[in-house]
């Protein structure tokens, strides 16, 4: 349990919502022993509070500007409207899962004692990684739910390698996804088996890779307030939930907007040029999976519709999609920091493609 630093208990004389002496407090409270290199996360060092009316006026102007733009004739251009529709669609589709994930992560933070995790997982990280990968079958939901949960697990003392393996495997091997794959590819149970195998392989390999090559300072988790005095567990849960949801929700919109931009800017006919060559088609579908940002429950149907491509290429699409896409990269940037997101996504993409190709060559 994280300790309360002495600074917190000493009350400064209440200033009038102005900038207090910044040197008096650390930028964030460091949990004992876990992450000595922890630094303050995104947004913590934001601008000073400012007076109430000024912020309100700014917010009001911003909202008015957005509404004005939205109502103007420029916004009526079909490309802009399509962009707005796709952005809102991806966001709305993901919101229930994001709520689920941040509720779970808040619950993990507030209710589950740390000891539970150290007992549930094998002590040695090398063994904890495959167990965490298999545990991914438990959390149904799209990838938006797994990122906040993984962040919370790391805070609660789970080895980062195991938490990251869980992050990758949960969206890819949960029962809903496998059922959807079975429905989308009727009469091809080998596709379901291949997906399960390739996704687990990729997730576990990434976990072991992190053990060998990962460094803790790449993970920039925002300093988390621990169990504060004066807050009941439910209040702690509520605050964590609210904070995580707003934080992740903002990044979700970033990812959705990026996916919408690609959707509107790149015509689908580009697909046809790549369907022929076996290697190019694999790489192309992997890239498509990244930019398409489809939820893992439904990407099987999208893969089934890509009739011109080989089964291996479609398998790669389904393996890469839940692990690396624009939405996920944005969420990971928000939760773990940009240095992590870039390295992790790049490595995951490579590992996922290799796992998909190997499994496809063997099973399909």
């Amino acid at each position, binding site marked *: 349990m994280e300790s309360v630093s002495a600074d*917190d208990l000493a*009350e400064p004389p209440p200033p009038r919502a102005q*900038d*207090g002496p*910044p040197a*008096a*407090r650390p*930028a*964030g409270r460091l949990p004992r022993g876990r992450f000595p290199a922890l630094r303050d*996360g*995104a*947004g*913590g060092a934001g601008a000073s*509070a400012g007076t*109430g009316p000024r*912020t309100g006026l700014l*917010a009001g102007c*911003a909202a008015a500007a*957005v*509404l004005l733009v*939205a109502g103007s004739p420029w*916004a009526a251009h079909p490309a802009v409207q*399509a962009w*707005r*529709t*796709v*952005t*809102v*669609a*991806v966001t*709305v*589709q993901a*919101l*229930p899962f994001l*709520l689920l994930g941040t509720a779970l992560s808040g619950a993990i933070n507030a209710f589950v004692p740390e000891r539970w995790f150290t007992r549930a997982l094998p002590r040695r990280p090398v063994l904890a990684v495959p167990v965490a990968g298999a545990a991914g079958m438990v959390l149904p939901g799209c990838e938006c739910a797994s990122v906040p949960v993984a962040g919370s697990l790391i805070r609660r003392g789970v080895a980062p390698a195991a938490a990251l393996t869980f992050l990758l495997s949960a969206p890819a091997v949960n029962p809903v996804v496998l059922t959807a794959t079975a429905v989308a590819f009727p009469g091809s149970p080998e596709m379901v088996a291949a997906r399960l195998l390739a996704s687990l392989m990729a997730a576990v390999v990434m976990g072991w890779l992190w053990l060998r090559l990962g460094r803790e300072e790449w993970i920039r988790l925002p300093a988390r*307030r621990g169990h504060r005095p*004066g807050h009941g567990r439910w209040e702690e849960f*509520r605050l964590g939930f*609210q*904070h995580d*949801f*707003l*934080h992740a*929700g*903002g990044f979700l*919109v*970033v990812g959705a907007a990026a*996916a*919408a931009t690609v*959707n509107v800017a790149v015509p*689908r*006919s580009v697909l*046809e040029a790549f369907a022929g060559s076996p290697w190019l088609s694999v790489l192309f579908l992997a890239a498509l999976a990244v930019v*398409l*940002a489809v*939820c893992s429950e*439904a990407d099987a149907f*999208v893969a089934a519709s890509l*009739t011109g491509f080989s089964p291996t290429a479609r398998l790669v699409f389904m393996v890469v999609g839940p692990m690396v896409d624009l939405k996920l990269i944005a969420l990971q940037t*928000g939760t773990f920091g940009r240095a992590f997101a870039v390295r992790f996504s790049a490595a995951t993409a490579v590992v996922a493609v290799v796992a998909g190709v190997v499994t496809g060559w063997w099973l399909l």
Partner: protein
Amino acid sequence: MRRNVQVLLLVLTGAGLLHAALLTDVCLRFVKEGLRPALVASGALLVLLGLVAAARDGFPTARRDRADRRSSAPGAHGHGRAPGVAWLLFFPALSLLFFTPPALGAYTAAREAPPPATEAARAFPPLPGGSPLPMTLSEFRLRAGQDRARSLEGRTVRLLGFVTPAGDGGWYLSRLVVSCCAADSRAVKIRVYGAPAPPADTWVTVTGRLRPGPVPAAEAALDAERVRVAPEPADPYRDAAPPAGD
């Protein structure tokens, strides 16, 4: 983001979701019908969270208590603050309530190339009787392209879709079909001959016959006998047959 703004954001997002999923059918422009209960639950949960936050943290002015003073210094990532990126959430929240963007239409469908040459011809179940026969666009295209028994020949069918202009002055009757959300839409397009092109994005019912051609065929085509403007269906992305009658 100050806590009173957070409350506003939570309540607005929840209200937007409830408006789109519970009070109207606006959510169907973005996602499928199956997600509606989850959206209603999410909206209710967000409104609840916002109200609890308003009660505990104070709204419209933030309650200045012990916890608030502790976290008001700059650089403190205390529980009062959410990061600036959360402002972006206002965009979808407001879009669900005001100036809601329309469902994807002719612009998206026009940019999609026709599908590659379909698979070999195969057998289909027999068509029911009745004329004109209401049918979905997907079934029409499948049968036109792959039906070995050519069951569509000589039958008058009625189809419902929106107008997508083709580059050469002609037009397609089209629908967009989605698997997950509007981002992964695929277009089903039937080329229409024998009628002038209505304005793009108009929803119409077309009564006509299959234009003769080889089977398997790459592009299904229809000789139109009658084109009538129709109301936009509540669920624009679900390929459904038009209601019987005119």
